[in-house]
C-alpha cells in the first residue's frame, strides 16, 4: 500500500501503444471502443510524450471519512498531480465517491459526515480555504448530467459570475463562455444558438456542458464522478477523448465503475475496497501487474 511512492518510468509508458495484447483484452470486455485503433494510438502516444504528469497539485493525507459511526473512507493517502488523470476504481460502496467529494468539501453537506486527516491543495489544507473559493479551484462533474434549467450561455455564465451578481454582463462574458465551450468540445454544436435551453441538448451534450461549466473558472483540479455512466457509448467515447485533452492543463480525478474506461483514460489508478486504498500506481502496473491479491482478483474478474 506504499505503492504511491513508486517512481513511474516514462519509457515504460512509451511502449504502451506498441503493445496491443492487453488493450485487446480490455476491448473483449465488450465495453465501447471509443475511437478506431488507428486514431487511438497516435493520440495516446502524443499524450504520453509529455511524461508522467506535472507538479503535485493535491495531496490526501491519512484521510478517513465517517458517516455517523460508519467509516466510508479509511486512512487513505494519495498524491494528485497536475497534467494527469487519476482513476479511482473499486466495487460499489467502497468509498470512491466519498473520497472524491471530500476533495472539494462536498461531503460537508451530508448530515452526520465527519472527517479525519487532511486534504491539501497546493500545500494548503482545504479546511483553511474559503469553501466557495476552493470549489472554484476544484471543480466537479456529476454522474447525472445536470445543467440548470436556463440557456446554454447562462449555464456557463452562472459559473463564471461571482455568486448571483448580474455583472459582468453578457458582452464581457461572451469570450470566456465561448472558450469554456470550446475546451469542452461543445462549441461547434451549440455556437449557432447559445440561447437554447440547456435541457434541450442530448445527454452527452448536457454532460459536456456540465464540463464546460466546471472548467469555465479555470480550475486546477477537475473531479468527475462516473461522468459517463448515464451516457450512451458514443457520448462516452467523446467524453473520454475530452478527458484526454483536459488532463494536459489540469489534474483530473475520475471515479469509474468501468475498468476499461479506467484503463483508457487513467494515467494513475487507485483501487479502493471497502474504504481502504488497496493499490495505487501507474495504470499500466495496476492493470497488468497488480501487487495486492484483491486488486488482482478485481481486475481479473472484470477482465475475464
Amino acid at each position: 500500500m506504499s505503492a504511491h511512492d513508486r517512481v513511474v518510468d516514462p519509457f515504460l509508458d512509451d511502449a504502451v501503444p506498441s503493445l496491443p495484447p492487453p488493450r485487446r483484452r480490455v476491448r473483449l470486455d465488450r465495453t465501447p471502443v471509443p475511437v478506431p485503433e488507428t486514431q487511438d494510438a497516435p493520440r495516446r502516444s502524443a499524450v504520453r510524450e509529455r511524461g508522467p504528469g506535472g507538479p503535485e497539485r493535491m495531496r490526501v493525507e491519512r484521510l478517513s471519512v465517517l458517516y455517523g459511526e460508519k467509516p466510508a473512507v479509511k486512512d487513505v493517502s494519495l498524491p494528485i498531480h497536475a497534467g494527469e488523470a487519476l482513476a479511482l476504481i473499486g466495487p460499489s460502496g467502497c468509498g470512491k465517491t466519498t473520497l472524491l467529494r471530500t476533495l472539494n468539501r462536498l461531503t460537508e453537506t451530508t448530515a452526520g459526515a465527519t472527517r479525519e486527516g487532511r486534504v491539501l491543495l497546493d500545500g494548503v489544507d482545504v479546511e483553511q480555504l474559503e469553501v466557495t473559493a476552493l470549489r472554484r479551484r476544484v471543480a466537479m462533474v456529476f454522474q447525472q448530467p445536470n445543467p440548470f434549467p436556463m440557456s446554454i450561455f447562462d449555464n456557463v455564465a452562472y459559473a463564471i459570475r461571482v455568486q448571483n451578481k448580474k455583472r459582468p454582463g453578457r458582452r464581457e462574458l461572451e469570450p470566456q463562455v465561448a472558450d469554456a465551450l470550446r475546451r469542452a468540445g461543445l462549441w461547434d454544436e451549440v455556437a449557432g444558438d447559445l440561447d437554447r435551453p440547456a435541457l434541450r441538448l442530448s445527454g452527452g451534450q448536457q454532460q459536456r456542458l456540465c464540463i464546460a461549466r466546471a472548467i469555465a473558472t479555470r480550475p486546477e483540479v477537475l473531479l468527475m464522478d462516473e461522468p459517463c455512466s448515464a451516457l450512451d457509448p458514443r457520448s462516452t467515447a467523446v467524453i473520454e477523448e475530452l478527458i484526454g485533452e483536459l488532463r494536459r492543463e489540469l489534474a483530473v480525478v475520475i471515479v469509474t465503475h468501468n475498468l476499461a474506461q479506467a484503463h483508457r483514460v487513467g494515467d494513475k489508478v487507485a483501487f479502493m475496497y471497502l474504504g481502504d486504498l488497496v493499490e495505487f500506481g501507474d495504470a499500466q502496473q495496476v492493470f497488468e501487474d497488480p501487487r495486492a491479491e484483491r486488486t488482482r482478483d478485481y481486475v481479473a474478474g472484470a477482465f475475464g
Partner: protein
Amino acid sequence: MAATIEAPAPVAPAPHQRPAPRGDRLSSWKWSHRLAFLTCWACGIALCAVTLAIVVYMGVRGIQYLNPELLFTRPTPGLQQHTTGGILDPIMGTVILTIIGIAIAVPLAVTSAVWLVEYGKPAPLARAVESGIEVVAGTPDIVIAIFGLAIFQLPILAPLSFTASGGGVFGRSFLAAGAMMSLIALPMVFGATREGLMSIPTHVREASWALGKTRICTIRTILLPQVRANVATGAALGMGRIVGDTAVVVVLLGATLQLEPQGDVPILGNLRGTGSTLTSYVYGASPAGEGNAPQKAYAAAFVLLLIVLTLNFAVDYLGRRKETR
C-alpha cells in the same frame, strides 16, 4: 455484458393464424370484483353529476338574475329587492381581501418552506414548524377569526382597524381580516412550495455548490425559479380558500354592506375600514340572512362560483405546464 448475442430469429406465425389475444375481460372477473369495480365507476359518475348539477343550477339561476348593472352598482340597504342595489362592493371586497391575504401568505410560506427544505436544522424546530403549519391548516376558520378578533382588539393595534367614535377598538378591518385570511392560504402555498423544492434532485443543488456558489445564491438563482410554478399553484389554491371563506369576513371584516372607510386617507382608509365579500353578501341576501334579496344572492353566488372555477382552472393549467416543461 453479452453484446454480441444474436436476437432469436423471429418465428411469429402469419397474422391470420394467431389466436386472439387473451385480455383481462370483465366477464372473467369474480363477482365481488365486478361489484367493486362497478361501485368505483358509479361513485366517479355520481361525483361528476353533483358537480355538474351545482354548476348548471347556479349557472341557470345566475344568468337569469345577473346583469351588468348589478355588477357595477353599489349595494344599498332596503327592504324590497329592487331597492337593494348591486354587488359592486362585495366584489371589490373580495378582490381587496384576496390580495391582502395572498400578499402576506406567499412570502411567509415560501420563506418557511425554503428554510424547512434547504436548512431544516435543528430538527426539532423543523418538526415544530411542520406540525405548526399542519395545525393552522386544520384549524376551523371561525376559530382563526375569533383569535384574530382577540388580537386586533388590542389597543396597540387600534390604528389597523375600525375604531368607534368613543375610542373602542372593534378590531374589524380589511387589514385584520387579510392578516387572518393569510393563515388560511398559508398552508396551501407552503405545501406546494415544499413539494416543489423536494422534487428537485439533490445533485442539482450540489452542482451549484460545486461551482463555488453559496446556499443562498443557489436558492435564489437555481431553486426558486424552478418552483415558481408550484408557488403559483399554491397561491391560486390559497386564493380559492380566501375567496370562499365566510367566517373570517363576518367576524373580522364586519360584513357591512358597503365599503366603509375609516378616516379620510383614500386607500389606507379603506384598508382600515370594513366591508363585505361575495360570501358574506350571499349569506346576507339569501333567505337565511336579513337582506331579503334571494335573486341577487343567486347572482352573487354565481359570480363567486365563476371566480373559484377560474382559480381552479388556473391551478390545473399551472400544474400541467410544470409537467410538460
